[in-house]
């Protein structure tokens, strides 16, 4: 019933599809899905502004409606065309603005890959996801994968990345530790955390014109409790330093052990502190 009901609901709501991205050009649009069946969104438990008092009686033979319903089969539950799109735009401070739209994949998980680092997130009930992330390579290429078979990619050239020192860690699912930075006040450090299950953490420092000198201490931490004590951590590390080639490696951290429950699993020497040399 779901496909039919969804189409009726869309018609009842008279939802007008409005592109949230009308000011940008779609970099990749996929062909609509061929199946008539469309997933229904799981609606949040919040009050809605209307109530359906009664359902109109449906004819016992729905076959007669097929010629009406068929043209709507690639429309989402909110009446938006199912085509998936990815928009990537470069922002100041070497930031990538990413907009994912897959109206017919509401609340589904996606894997995002940038500069060889992957992390996971979940689309909204309307099948959208918007976020900003620090670029980790000048080409600004972002790949979004829906399940195993479908993916989109977008590119936005980042011009000012060479002014940044950045360290990014893409953690394996459920193993993320907290990336900590301790810096003096004259060295403003920004940290980003994106993703849900597979997290992506980035520490970013913009070299100022005065080339302030100092040290930014980096550490990894995680409270040790019954659920994490026997769990190690795995992630991919990418470090960008002005004038040096990117440094990439995989990190595997042994579990702290359940004898240490109540302590903090703190590693101060695994990540190299950022040493900034003044002019």
């Amino acid at each position, binding site marked *: 019933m779901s496909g039919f009901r969804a189409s009726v609901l869309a018609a009842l709501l008279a939802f007008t599809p409005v592109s949230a991205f009308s000011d940008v050009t779609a970099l990749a649009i996929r062909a609509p899905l061929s199946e008539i069946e469309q997933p229904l969104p799981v609606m949040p438990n919040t009050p809605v502004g209307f109530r359906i008092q009664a359902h109109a009686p449906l004819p016992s033979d729905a076959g007669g409606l097929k010629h009406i319903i068929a043209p709507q089969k690639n429309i989402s539950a909110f009446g938006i065309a199912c085509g998936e799109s990815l928009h990537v735009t470069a922002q100041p401070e070497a930031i990538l603005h990413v907009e994912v739209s897959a109206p017919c994949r509401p609340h589904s998980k996606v894997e995002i890959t940038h500069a060889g680092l992957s992390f996971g997130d979940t689309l909204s009930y309307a099948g959208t996801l918007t976020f900003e992330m620090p670029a980790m390579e000048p080409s600004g290429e972002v790949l979004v994968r829906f399940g195993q078979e479908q993916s989109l990619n977008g590119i936005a050239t980042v011009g000012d990345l060479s002014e940044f020192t950045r360290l990014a860690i893409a953690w394996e699912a459920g193993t993320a530790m907290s990336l900590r930075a301790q810096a003096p006040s004259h060295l403003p450090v920004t940290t980003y955390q994106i993703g849900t299950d597979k997290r992506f953490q980035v520490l970013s420092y913009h070299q100022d014109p005065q080339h302030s000198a100092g040290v930014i201490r980096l550490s990894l931490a995680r409270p040790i409790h019954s659920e994490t004590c026997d769990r190690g951590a795995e992630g991919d590390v990418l470090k960008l330093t002005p004038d040096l080639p990117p440094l990439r490696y995989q990190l595997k951290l042994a579990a702290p052990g359940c004898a240490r429950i109540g302590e903090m699993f703190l590693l*101060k020497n695994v990540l*190299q502190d950022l040493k900034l040399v003044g002019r």
Partner: protein
Amino acid sequence: MTKMKRMLCAALLSAAPAFAQDVSLTSRDGAIQIDGTLMSYDGEFYRVDTIYGPLTFDGEGVTCAGPGCPDLDAFIADVTFSGTRHMGDVLIPALIQSFAARHQLSLTREVEDDTHSVFVLSDTDRVRARFTLRSSTTAEGYADLIAEAADIAMVLREPNQSELDLAQSADPSPLSLNKRARVLALDGLIAIAAPDQPVQALTLANLSEIYAGEVLDWSELGGSDGKILALAPPENSGISEAFLSRVIAQGGDRPIKTAQTHADPDDLADQVAQDAFAIGLGTLSTAGNAVPMRLKGACGFEQEASVTTLRAEDYPLTLPLMFYTAPRRLPLLAREFLAFTRSPAADLVIRRTGYVDQAITVSGFDTLGDRLAHAITNVSAETPLPELQRLVTTLRDRVRLSTTFRFESGVRLDVQSNENVARLAQALETGRFDGKSLLFVGFSDGQGPASANKDLARQRAELVLGQVREAAGVADFRQIELSADAFGEVLPMACDDSDWGRSINRRVEVWLE
């Protein structure tokens, strides 16, 4: 038999752990066969415990049969580094990461805890090497090396007599411990203070008195009133050991008395940076956001720990970070890693991690500024003006290389200068100074008669020149002019009123034209 003799490289420790697996090595022509127990295989060489004792065979010259034979296509180079955390925390991981990237090997770092990691280097086919890194102390590094629990020791000092004796008893081969040292990078022992502490220079005697608990207030050092909070690393750390032997002990055999100790040098530096009344012991690489204090002498010279002064060993408390390697052939990738650490790429990593590399750089005659002014001010019968004028005439059109040679005693070069011989020889061999003239200039301290000092300075300059020439075996000396000169005590760099000042003044500089 000849071939087998040629393959035999060294007799090694009979007490080494064996795999207890039998192998039979046969020469390619089938004429010679030796049976034994495989002790190790480094990807190129077999090490086998035989009835003649432990022997090493070139893998290319033999075929291996028996249950103990290694899988030649699946060899993984296992290399263990052990020693001071001052090298193991940051420098060695950074060098391994850079080495892997340059060899297009992917890298996985498996972290057991803050002091124990395994770096797995792989190509697209398989794992090629495992570099195990254990960070503890210099003493443990030597102990692991002697016990064959490590292939490379990371150390901050040369071995003491008991370590040399142990090494000699474990391995009486001609490759004694001190022949296997090399300086990887440089650091400087320093005192640190907060940026807003007005006292930014101390004498070594001041430092000694502070850490002996004899000077308690900044006002005694020319600062404003305020109790000194003296911080130090733990007593068994390499930094404290070095301070005790090179600074505190100069004022008598006194223990370090501090308000607090910090096992983590970063924590120590952070606390000092935030407390205007604190002073800390540390190194230039770990100064963090605190300020390195200058060392001053009674005659007015001040020495600052910097890249330039550490490279030239013009700072008295230069701290060489050294590798000592095991007395056996290391796997190919380990040898390639060691070669990489002497490359310009490694120099860049060393600088980026806050240490000082040993790249050969130049500075102009005009940088002599203060030294020359001091020399002119102190012209005397021992250091006459004509000699100073000859110095100016000789060096004015030249530039000074950062490579400088200093002596432990008499004419014995210190460990950093031995590395400098190798570095300069390498530069000569690669033709870097072809078409140029290198002048080795000897200087002395001011103790004793000036003429004797000048003779000794010339003797040292000629000695260094000879060592460099000998080390640069394949250099084309038709393209390079090497000569020696000496100016004795006319251009001191530090005050002659202390041992450290005199040791700074006894030097051979190299000037390029």
